[in-house]
Structures are given as C-alpha cells and as structure tokens.
C-alpha cells in the first residue's frame, strides 16, 4: 500500500509546513516587523503581552479569531471566500522544494523534485489569482484597483525572478534545489553572481508587495488594497499568505545564493535559519527606510532596467558555462 503511505506523508507534511509557517514565519515575523520598525523609529514597539511583548501576535491572532466575519452585501460570496484560501495555499506550496538543512540520512527537504526551481516559480505565480479574485470579489473600487495593480506588478516582476532562477540553474547544471545547494559547498553563488542576487532581492521585494513596492496596499490611496473588505480570521489568512510568501522567497534566496545550509561549526539547520532571518531583516530594513514609489516608475524599472540586466547576465553566464564545459 505505497499510495496510502504517500497520502499520509502528504497530510503530515502539510500539517507540519502549515504550523511551522504559521508560528515561526508569520506570528514571529509580524512581531519582528513591529519590533524592527519600532527600533528604526526610536520607539519601543509591543512590550506588554508576555516577556518583552513576545506573545503580542498570539494575542492578536486570538482577537482576530473572535471577530465577526463580515461579507459585504454586494460582494460575490464564492469568489470572496475562495480567494482567502488560494493566497496562503500558494505560499505554503512553495515550501515543498526548500532544503532546510541536512542530516546523516540526506538533505532535510519535503521532496527533492528534479524540477525544483521551476516548481517554485510555478507555485508562487498562483498567488496573483487569489489577489485578483479578492480584489474583484469584494465589489469595492479600492480593492479592485489594488488587485489590478498587484497583478500588473507580480506578472512584471516574475520575469526577472524567472531569469535569475534560470541563471542559477545554469551555474549548478540542475533545477533541483538540493543540487544547487551542493554546488555551493566551496563558493556561494552570491560571489559568482552578485548581479543576479541583487536582481532577485529587488524583484522578490516587489513580488511580495512590500515597500518601496507596496502600491498594492498603499494606505494613503487605496485603504488596504485588495484586502480592504476582509475582517477577522480572513484578514489573518491574507497576512499568513503574505508573510509565508516573503519567508519562502527569502528561503529561496538563501538556497540559490547564500549556500543554503552550508557553514562552519554550527549545525546546518541553524545556519539556514540564521541566513534566512538575516535576509528577512534586510527586507524589513528596506521597508522602513525607503518611501513608496509610483506605479509607472515601478513598472518601468522592471521592464527597462531589471529585465535587460538579467537577460544580459544570463547570456554572459551561459557563455562562461559553455566555455568551462568545453
């Protein structure tokens, strides 16, 4: 009964990924975001619930669970309700191919797909559908504008991300994330591919709709963008999707450029977590120091700067890879 074992494995894996993402990435991530922003603005941040405010997000989540679930009268109930499921689901699917570390019995990964990088690009592109559906289903002009902006933005910035993924796959000679990490045992790809790393970081910031690219939920013009009409736990699920996606992209950046679990002395998993949170800190640092840019500036930046640069980088990399294999 191989398939029953496989299904059980999938169910257990889903529960593990979901709880890990919900507790470690989202709850702690939101707290970290508030603490970092407070530190950058010379405030204290959450301080009262638990030691040093550690339990603040837990309290917030319990509060959100108790809130009434409001559906606007003119909203489309099916689209409105299903959008909430798609966004966190697409973010959770990303984690299947991320190698968190290595043990004696092999790398610590849910499944080492031979199309790993392609799979990652595919699942992270599904988020857009959820956001568009949320924006349209709310029957609110701000939500719809937010959803449309998000679709334009994410479709545009997926291209440089895809080109960077291809570049790294060329370096490693494989699409499998484990092979890519193994290829960095001696030299991290950030040294060989600094341009690709920079492009990936910028495009990832845009892909998860964070400042300076947070036009999708620009408070000053769009209320809260596509999730303006969502309340209670549904709002929390969108937050889960957003932070889940941010951690997934940071984990992918660690896998692609920062040597994954490789590092001296400390255990591999710890190295992975250290690098992951270092990148998350960079994301937060950027968010709380840069002002928002305009939508046309943002789209122009991707089409006229990021995409040409990453195409050039890909061609140069391909040239050197072919020369090295000759």
């Amino acid at each position, binding site marked *: *009964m*191989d*398939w*029953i074992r496989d299904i059980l494995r999938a169910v257990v894996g889903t529960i593990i990924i979901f709880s890990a993402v919900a507790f470690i990435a989202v709850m702690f991530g939101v707290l970290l975001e508030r603490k970092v922003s407070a530190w950058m603005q010379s405030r204290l941040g959450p301080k009262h619930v638990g030691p040093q405010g550690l339990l603040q997000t837990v309290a917030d989540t319990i509060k959100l669970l108790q809130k009434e679930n409001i559906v606007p009268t003119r909203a*489309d109930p*099916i*689209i409105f309700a*299903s959008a909430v499921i798609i966004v966190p689901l697409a973010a959770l699917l990303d984690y299947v191919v991320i190698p968190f570390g290595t043990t004696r019995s092999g790398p610590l990964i849910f499944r080492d*797909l*031979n*199309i790993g990088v*392609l*799979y990652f*690009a*595919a*699942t992270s*592109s*599904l988020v*857009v*559908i959820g956001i*568009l*559906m949320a924006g*349209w289903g709310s029957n609110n002009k701000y939500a*719809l504008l937010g*959803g*449309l902006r998000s*679709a*334009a933005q994410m*479709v545009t910035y997926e291209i440089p991300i895809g080109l960077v993924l291809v570049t790294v796959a060329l370096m490693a000679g494989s*699409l499998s994330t484990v092979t890519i990490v193994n290829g960095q045992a001696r030299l991290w790809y950030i040294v060989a591919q600094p341009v690709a790393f920079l492009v990936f970081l910028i495009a990832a910031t845009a892909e998860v709709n964070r400042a300076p690219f947070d036009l999708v939920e620009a408070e000053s013009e769009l209320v809260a963008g596509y999730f303006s009409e969502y309340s209670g736990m549904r709002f929390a699920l969108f937050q889960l999707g957003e932070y889940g996606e941010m951690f997934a992209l940071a984990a992918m950046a660690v896998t692609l450029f920062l040597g994954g679990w490789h590092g001296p002395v400390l255990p591999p998993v710890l190295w992975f977590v250290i690098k992951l949170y270092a990148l998350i800190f960079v994301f937060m640092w950027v968010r709380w120091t840069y002002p928002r840019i305009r939508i046309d500036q943002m789209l122009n930046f991707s089409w006229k700067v990021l995409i040409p640069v990453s195409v050039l980088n890909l061609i140069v990399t391909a040239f050197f890879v072919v020369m090295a294999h000759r």
Partner: protein
Amino acid sequence: MSGEAIVFYLLAAVTLASGVIVVTSENIVHSAAALVPSFLGVTGLYILLNAEFVAGIQVLIYAGAITVLILFAIMLTEGGTGFGTRQRNEQAAVGAAVAAAMAVLLIVIATRTGWTAGSGTLPLYTPGVIGQSFLRQNILVFEGTSVVLLISLMGAILIARRED
C-alpha cells in the same frame, strides 16, 4: 481499484466538473476562475504520467499566467463587473450536439485502439534532454513558435495603440 486509478478518476472529475462550470456559468469571472482547478487537474494527470516538467510548465503558463491574463482582461474592459454578460446564444443546442458527437467519436477511437505497451526502456526524461531536443532536432518548430508569439505581441500593441 488501484490507487493510481482512484487518483486518475478524482483528477478527471475535478477537471471535467470545473470545465462544465467554465462553459455554463452565467458570470464570466466565475468561468475564468473555474479554469484554475481545471488546469490543476490536468497538471495532476501529467504528474501521474511522470511528466514533471510538463506539469510545472502547465502550472506556470496556464494556471499562473493565462488565467491571470484572462481575469485582467475581463476586469479592465468595459462592463468588466461580469454581470449581465450573456454567455450563451441561440446556437447553444448546435454547439452541444457537435460537442457530444466529438465526445462519442473520441470514446470510440479510444476504446477501439489496441493500446500495446512499447518494449525497451523509456527515453531519458529530464529538463536537460528537453532543452537539447528544442535546440537540435526541433529548432525550426521552436523558433517558428517564437516568431508567431512575437507577431501576435506586436499586433496587439498595434491595435491597442491605434488611437494615439
């Protein structure tokens, strides 16, 4: 029934049920959204056939890009609320008859054909081999497709920019 058969029927049911919603729904946005489970069901079938690369491309291009494009187009066009657009016209009966005839034809072909299993080992199936075949034996087809895509892109810009 083996596990593989159960999975096949489940995926087929998801694909077909959402396909029915796509063609029958009164609301054009519902139709577009129902394309997603349909595409994902086909992806599952590809995975069942050990065609991971095609499955990945199916999600990336169809579920990820094509659906977003369709939704985007619906929401940006006039009357994009999706209400009040009639999806069926007086030719619905003719269309249904043609579809039924096509289905009968396909079922007859599928059941009449003797599906003999080929001998020998499967050809190597990796992204690398697929890329090699695109750039060696099939380069003409590959480049031809890209020219077609380029022309359609230019045509779209030409039509959209006419008023300027």
